Each structure stands twice: as structure tokens, then as C-alpha cells.
């Protein structure tokens, strides 16, 4: 069965793609939009200058989706994928990714070995962390001039804060929010979500606003919905919110309460067309300076400790980045930190439950 599939797809695709793959040195699947731009500026341009190798970026709503489909079909077309850490661990468990030895990564600019330089949890068997980022609530300040929302509970309170809400079509980035709004302390979210009653509780809370939700999928969508006035509050990736607020001057506010803190990582799938070049790119891009470079263009925290002191101003040379970083102490006070192992284990069943809840 598998063989026939590979054969029939290979027949069609090998002819078409053989020529394209040779033209670029490395192709990287990332999340598109402002985030992709920051990677091009922060990693790719210096990489091309230093090595002469070109990098082609491919945008996806969530690169884990094309990666899994490509591996399943036995036809991997890109070398490097930028994934949420939980997906990276999960795919590593399924044998879809190449293992990367952390000892081969370059030391930090201050001489710290890579193993100690990367923040906790950002080096895994198959994955090298690049950024620390948050999912936050953004709201339209013009809609709530006197009494702006401040907590996650306000997000679920459509009477005091009227208007539609934007939420992602994802179990992982909605269930924690419902539990926090229902009074679960950030530290206990996974304990509660690990029980069937806790899952029911989260869905019951989501039920209360289901009719008022506009669902989004790509990272650029929520800011568009907010700018169009389709929603008055939405969750979004903190760098995108920052880009809309500071980069484009939109009248948005951020609620850091109950932000969802995650690490993203670069991985190389097994069967990648050019894994050596991919690894070379990853080593360069996750170096101290490129990670610090990236923070000049988007407010995501670098995964290396040695990059932090190098982060200063936004590309306009006047906005201080620190207050917009998800890792700033005030902002992490009530944050839910991603538990990649929990999601590697539970993603499948919770996603299935979420999809059937969504469709009814």
C-alpha cells in the first residue's frame, strides 16, 4: 500500500521538483507574516552574507501540518521546519525527525557551551530552540475607552465587554484560557486538564462564548479581524500584536494576564532533500547574534541566554523592546508555561474532542 503510494506520487513529483530543489541551498518552512520577516532579517541575510548560501522561506499556518503530511506521504520537500516544541517532541517520538546532537552547536558569544547557553527546555533530542513567545489577548482600545479589559475572565465576559472574540482553531491554545477564566491558577492548568472532569470543565467554559467566537487559523488573521472591527478582543501571538501596535500604529492593547508561554524550535525531518545544509543553517541561525538580531524586528525572546543582553531597541531605534517581551518578569507573573510532554501525549485526543465540539 505504502509502496504504491510512494511510487505514484514519486512518478508525478520527482520530475517536477528535482529541478527546483537544486536551485536553492536550503528551504525553511516557517509561520509567515511579521515573524517570517524577522527571520529573514535576523537569520537569513547574515547567513547568506557569511556563507553565500541562499535560503528560501515557505509560509504555513502551522509548519507541523505540512511536515506530518510530507513524512506520511514519503515525500519531504523542505530541509528545515520551525515548530512548536510540543510538536517537535511528538514528531521525534514518531521517528519523523533527525536527531541533533546539542554538543555540535556553537558556543555562545560569551563562551558558554551551547548546552548551558540555551534556556531550559529549548534543546531536545531532535530540536534546537530559537524563540520564546507568548499567546496573549489583544483588544481594540477604541471599543473600551473608559474601562479596558484586564484579565482572562474579562475575555469571557461578553456582557461587560461586548463584541465578538477571536480564538484559534486549536485545542492547545484555547483550553488553558477557558480554565484560567474559570478560576484555575496558572500553575495548576495541566493538573486540571489531565483529568476528564478538567477537560469537561474547559469545554463547558468555552461553551459560554461559543456563539460569539470568530475562529482564526493563520497567525496574521487575528490582527486583521481586530483591525477590521470584526472582533473586539482576540488572542494572538505576542510578536504579531506588537507588530500591529508598534509597527503599524494600530490602537490595540495587550493583556499579559494568563499568557501562554511557548518555545519554538528548528527541526530537520528524516528524508529532507538537503539535511547537511539544513543543519548548517540551524547552527548559524540559533547563534547568539542572529537570535539577538531577530528580536530587533519582532518581540519574541531569544532562546539563548547570551543573546538577551544584546537585545535593545526595535528597528525604529526608539522603542524599548523589554516591556513587549513575553519573558519580561512582569509579563510572566501569571503566565502558563507550555508543557511540551503533556501536549506531545495528549494533543491527539484533545484535538479530536475539540474538533467534534467545534463542528456541532
Amino acid at each position, binding site marked *: 500500500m505504502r509502496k504504491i503510494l510512494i511510487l505514484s506520487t514519486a512518478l508525478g513529483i520527482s520530475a517536477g521538483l528535482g529541478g527546483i530543489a537544486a536551485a536553492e541551498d536550503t528551504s525553511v518552512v516557517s509561520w509567515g507574516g511579521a515573524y517570517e520577516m524577522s527571520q529573514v532579517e535576523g537569520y537569513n541575510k547574515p547567513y547568506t552574507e557569511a556563507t553565500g548560501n541562499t535560503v528560501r522561506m515557505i509560509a504555513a499556518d502551522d509548519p507541523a501540518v505540512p511536515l506530518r503530511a510530507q513524512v506520511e506521504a514519503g515525500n519531504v520537500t523542505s530541509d528545515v521546519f520551525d515548530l512548536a516544541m510540543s510538536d517537535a517532541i511528538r514528531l521525534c517520538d514518531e521517528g519523523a525527525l533527525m536527531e541533533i546532537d546539542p554538543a555540535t552547536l556553537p558556543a555562545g558569544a560569551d563562551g558558554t557551551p551551547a548546552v548551558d547557553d540555551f534556556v531550559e527546555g529549548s534543546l531536545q533530542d531532535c530540536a534546537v530552540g530559537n524563540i520564546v513567545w507568548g499567546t496573549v489577548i489583544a483588544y481594540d482600545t477604541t471599543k473600551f475607552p473608559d474601562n479596558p479589559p484586564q484579565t482572562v475572565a474579562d475575555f469571557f465576559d461578553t456582557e461587560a465587554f461586548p463584541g465578538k472574540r477571536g480564538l484559534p482553531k486549536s485545542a492547545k491554545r484555547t483550553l488553558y484560557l477557558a480554565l484560567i477564566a474559570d478560576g484555575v491558577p496558572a500553575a495548576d492548568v495541566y493538573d486540571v486538564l489531565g483529568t476528564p472532569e478538567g477537560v469537561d470543565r474547559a469545554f463547558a467554559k468555552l461553551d459560554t462564548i461559543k456563539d460569539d467566537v470568530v475562529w482564526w487559523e493563520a497567525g496574521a488573521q487575528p490582527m486583521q479581524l481586530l483591525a477590521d472591527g470584526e472582533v473586539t478582543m482576540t488572542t494572538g501571538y505576542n510578536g504579531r500584536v506588537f507588530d500591529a501596535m508598534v509597527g503599524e500604529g494600530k490602537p490595540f492593547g495587550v493583556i499579559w494576564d494568563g499568557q501562554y508561554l511557548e518555545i519554538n524550535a528548528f527541526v530537520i525531518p528524516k528524508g529532507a532533500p538537503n539535511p547537511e545544509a539544513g543543519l548548517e543553517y540551524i547552527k548559524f541561525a540559533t547563534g547568539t547574534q542572529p537570535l539577538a538580531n531577530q528580536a530587533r524586528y519582532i518581540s519574541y525572546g531569544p532562546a539563548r541566554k547570551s543573546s538577551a543582553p544584546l537585545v535593545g531597541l526595535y528597528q525604529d531605534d526608539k522603542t524599548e523592546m523589554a516591556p513587549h517581551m513575553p519573558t519580561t518578569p512582569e509579563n510572566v507573573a501569571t503566565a502558563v508555561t507550555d508543557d511540551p510532554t503533556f501536549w506531545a501525549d495528549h494533543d491527539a485526543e484533545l484535538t479530536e474532542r475539540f*474538533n467534534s465540539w467545534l463542528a456541532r
Partner: protein
Amino acid sequence: MANALDPHAAIVVQASAATPAPLTTADGQPLTRALARSQRVARRRAFMLVLPLLAFILVTFALPIGQMLGRSVHNDGYSANMSRMAAWFAANPPGTEREEAAFEALARDISDAAAARTIGIVGTRINYDVPGTRSLFTSSGRQLRELPDPPFRKAMVEINPQWDNDRLWVAMRSASTAVTGNFYLAAVDRTRNEDGAVMRVAENQRVYLMLFWRTFMLSLLITGLTFVLGFPIAHLLATLPTRRSNLLMILVLLPFWTSLLVRTTAWIVLLQQQGVVNDILVWLGVIGNGQRLQMIYNQTGTIVAMTHILLPFMVLPLYSVMRTINPSYVRAARSLGATSWTAFRRVYFPQTLPGFGAGALLVFILAVGYYITPALVGGSSGQLISNMIAVHMTDTLNWSLAAALAALLLAGVLALYWIYDRLVGIDNLKLG
């Protein structure tokens, strides 16, 4: 065999008229054999001409569909990676007490699968039948990197008491052979309990039957709407003078030639809360600024956008049939005293039915499989079964379940086609 247009057939007729004796060609061979040979060459040449098309259909249509249908009953995620367990299940019939040997096989297989990084695949396969067990496999796999000391049963239960669960063992037994009907059960909201008997899944997980029903009802509604909207347009097109009807025809065809995505996003612009329609209604004072209507990202959005997109598929067959209706029939009915309504109902309308049949069948079958438009404008209440198939194809990667759902959808469409053929007769279908 020989048909009237065949040049060789003419020879046969001529020859048999001349002599009744067995016929031979100039070099003495029996004529029938020579004829068969020359026809075989012609037939082979004709076959060679359609061969590229046949190969194309086979490779791009029949093969992939056959493969997908195969996947709906075949999944070797467990059986291929848990060889000792597969062997134990094969050797011991259902109902056998799970003894030490079974747990040893389990521990060793999990340990090996964890080392080979296939434990996720194994867990995913069992998770399809018993939700919530994927984590059992992966987390136990991490702890079983080194084999525990016997007795294995005690060791496994210590890692997680779930390992002695009846339902889990029923699921593992059924997954130990690659061929299974469980995906079809899942596609109709059914599962197996700890005795292996079929039962409905928990209330909050039932979704597919509801989606099939919604897809069917919405498709019927959309077919009805396209008929109501399309019939007058088609009538106008067929009766107007050519010059004006051509202009109108372009108006029908222009959206038909426009990209599906463009038309769908145009509806988003029109119907969204800050969109054109709501703006006009607020401006006219029909509704207040705070009461803007929710017309998109729900079922309404799906119905409106799909009706518009599928309208030409109803108008064009209706139009082509109406063009051929002789106007003198209606005139005759009128001159014999029928009112205009009776003349329409008893004379004109019945003659348009073949066009309606073709249009309805086209629209309905297209609507049943529609995917992009509901995904973009359907929100959550306007999703159809094809959107769930897409979720399982691209998101959860449960291709077996996606294949089972698709097979059921295909079977449903074929059944409707058959019913249509029995009731109306497929020969009455006219596309032009």
C-alpha cells in the same frame, strides 16, 4: 460485430450476394478470418489512441481512490511495530486469560518501539479506538527504555494500572491484524466496548452522523434555492431576443469563470459585520449600529455563498432545455382556454423537467462534496462533512478515518444517483 458503417461490412454484403460458397480472399484465406484480423488491427489502433487517456484516468483517479478506500480498512500502525504482541494474539483466541507471557511481549515490544521511535505510531493507532491511550504508550515507552525485572505483569501495572484494562486489550487485539472495520464504525459514531460489542460513542463525541445529516439537508436546501433563483433567469435567457439574452448570458457566465476563492472572499466582504450589507442596513436605519447581523461564519454564510457559486450549474442545463421547447405548445394551450398558470403548470413546466433533473443532480452532488467555501465562511455551524475529512487528512493525519468517511459519502451519492435513476430515469437527464 460488423456494423453498418464499417467499410468491411459492405464487402461482406456484396460478397454474400455474389456466391453462397465459403468465401476466401485473393490469397486463399477464409474471408471471416481476414476480416477479423483487419478489424483487430483497426481496433488496436483505436485502443492505442485512447490509451493515454485510460492510463491518465487509471493513475490519477482510479489508483488513488482505490488506495484511499484500501486505507479505510487497512492500518498496520500497530501490527507492523508490535510483532510479539501480534504473534501472541494470533496464538491465543479471544477470551484467553492475559498471562505473564502476554505482558512480557507487551513490555518488550514497547521497549523496542520506543528505541526505534515508532511508539508514537503505535499509540496513535490504539488511540483511534480507545481515546486517551496515546499518552499511555508514549509515556510508558519513555519509562521502558530499559526493560523492567519480571514479573512483567506487575511491572507494567506499576507503570500504569491502565495496562490491565479490558477495553485496551480488545483494541490491541483488533489492531494486531492490519485489516479492520473499526474506522467505518468510528465514521458512524460507533465504537467497541470491553466485550468487543458495537456501541455508540459518548454523547459529546458524536459528530459524524450529525455532519452527514447536515451536509445532506444543506445540499438539498441549496439545490432548492438554486432552482427557485435559477428558473426565472433561465426562462428569461431562453425567451429574450438573442442580442439581449447574450448579454444576460455573459452576466451568468462571468461569475462562473471567476475564481472560486475570489467569489467566496467577496461574500466575506459583503456579509461580515463591518461589511457592505450591514453598513447599508445601518445607514438606512433598518438596524442599529449595535445590532449588526451575523450573516457569515455560520450556516447562513455557507448557504448564501454556496447557492451563488452553484447557481450556474442549475441555470445552464435549464436554459439549454428551455431553448428547445416549442412556444406554440403554450400558445395552443392558451387558445384552448387554459389560464396562463395552467398552461405553465401543465404544458411548459413538465417540459423543463429534464433540465431540472440534470441541474439538481449536478448541484446536489457538487454541494455534498463542497469544501473550500464552508471552510472559509462556515464558521463552526456551517462546516460540512468534507471539512471533517480535510481535518483528518491534514490535521490529525487519521487517513484511515478520512478514507472511511469519504467512502460513506461516495456510497451515499451513488445511492442517490441510483434512486434518481429508478424514480426519474437517467435517460431523461439533459445537459443540452
